[in-house]
């Protein structure tokens, strides 16, 4: 970074420092960089002191005065060449330090003219040629400075564009992750977590013939008219799993207490949450459960695929609570009444309900879809799993 500089100055009374600047580097080191000098005295001292006529190949014998003039012209030509070379170097550096280079260019011609006058024998023409040489350099520097400005703007626009494009790509990647990748991975993880929880409960996969004898019969066969009541677990702790054959052969998701998104609904170890204000499992009333319709494993992604009479199983350490799906309802998000003991009513009912709530439509939270199921029976663990559940576990 250029922090200061001087375009041209006299090092001594005869030598011209053509270009120098203070270049401050990242380490704080300062350096004065000189691109070149024209030492007028050095050129002047090269002039021979002619005392006698000099023999010249072009003009025969030259008088000492003409010989000095001829040498002076030759020297002026070399100085001009030197100046052009330096001007070229300056114009090259102008792309990096346009301000300093321009300062040099505007001041150099005058100074060099003054210095050149000290050169004995220098003609008016040769004096004019030097500024002209630097004028070329000055034009080149001006063009370089303009290019530099344009390039700088282009670079800034380019970097901003690349940053925006990168941000756009990351937003797309995030959406892909959120809607697809995390959904799939969370779904697999939630199924595994549900199976692991279920396996802890010493599963004995035996079918229950009298229970399975009535597929599609909404009345079912009640083996245990009064199921045990599974008391609410600690907040965010898992206490049951939901098994829905309609949702797939491997669908088994853990149910945790509470509906905190970050601790229950969005996590891979659960996915379904029991509304704490609803009834306990097995209690007369409404056992209400929430889950995502899309993303985060989408445990209730196929809630609208349920058909009347479909069985839903809630497995606990005690056994399986069997429910039959009855109907769907679409409500506004604040319809808390759907998780009352008797949905949308203040009456005290006698049924045991399983209510699933989720979003509607998919990828929107504008409405809620509610799935009501009615308790059918309870299968104690020592009787073995219902055949549907046993088949799913064997397949899984």
């Amino acid at each position, binding site marked *: 970074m250029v922090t200061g500089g001087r375009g041209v100055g006299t090092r001594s009374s005869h030598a011209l420092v053509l270009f120098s600047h203070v270049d401050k580097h990242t380490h704080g080191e300062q350096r004065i960089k000189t691109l070149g000098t024209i030492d007028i005295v050095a050129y002047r001292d090269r002039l021979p002191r002619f005392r006698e006529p000099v023999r010249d190949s072009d003009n025969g014998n030259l008088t000492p005065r003409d010989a000095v003039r001829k040498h002076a012209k030759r020297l002026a030509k070399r100085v001009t060449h030197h100046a052009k070379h330096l001007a070229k170097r300056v114009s090259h550096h102008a792309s990096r330090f346009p301000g300093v280079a321009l300062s040099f260019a505007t001041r150099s011609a005058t100074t060099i003219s003054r210095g050149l006058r000290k050169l004995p024998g220098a003609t008016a023409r040769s004096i004019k040629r030097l500024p002209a040489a630097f004028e070329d350099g000055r034009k080149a520097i001006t063009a370089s400075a303009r290019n530099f400005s344009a390039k700088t703007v282009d670079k800034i626009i380019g970097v901003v564009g*690349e940053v925006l494009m990168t941000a756009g790509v990351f937003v797309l*990647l995030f959406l892909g992750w959120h809607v697809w990748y995390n959904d799939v991975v969370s779904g697999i993880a939630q199924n595994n977590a549900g199976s692991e929880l279920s396996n802890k409960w010493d599963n004995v996969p035996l079918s229950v013939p009298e229970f399975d004898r009535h597929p599609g019969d909404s009345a079912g066969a009640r083996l245990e008219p009064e199921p045990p009541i599974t008391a609410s677990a600690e907040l965010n702790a898992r206490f049951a799993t939901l098994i829905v054959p309609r949702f797939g052969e491997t669908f088994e998701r853990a149910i945790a207490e509470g509906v905190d998104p970050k601790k229950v609904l969005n996590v891979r170890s659960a996915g379904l949450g029991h509304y704490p*204000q609803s009834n306990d499992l097995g209690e007369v009333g409404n056992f209400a459960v*929430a889950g995502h*319709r899309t993303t985060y494993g989408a445990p209730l992604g196929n809630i609208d695929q349920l058909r009347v009479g479909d069985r839903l199983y809630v497995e606990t350490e005690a056994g399986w609570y069997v429910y039959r799906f009855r109907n769907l309802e679409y409500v506004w998000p604040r319809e808390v009444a759907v*998780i009352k003991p008797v949905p949308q009513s203040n009456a005290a009912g006698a049924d045991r309900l399983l209510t699933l709530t*989720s979003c509607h439509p998919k990828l929107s939270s504008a409405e809620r879809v509610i799935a009501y199921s009615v308790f059918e029976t309870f299968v104690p663990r020592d009787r073995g799993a219902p055949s549907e559940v046993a088949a799913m576990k064997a397949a899984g």
Partner: protein
Amino acid sequence: MYSALWKILPGPRWAKIVQVVVIAVVVLSISVEWIFPWAADTFIQPEITVDQ
């Protein structure tokens, strides 16, 4: 920006390509494992229950 990064990478072209692929995989992994979950928890809070 990317051209500057490309110039910074050492080695011949094939080595640079390998390094770019490695960097992309690392960035993607970090994004998927930490940045995206954090962003989802921070910026996306879907309301899916009926008691909101």
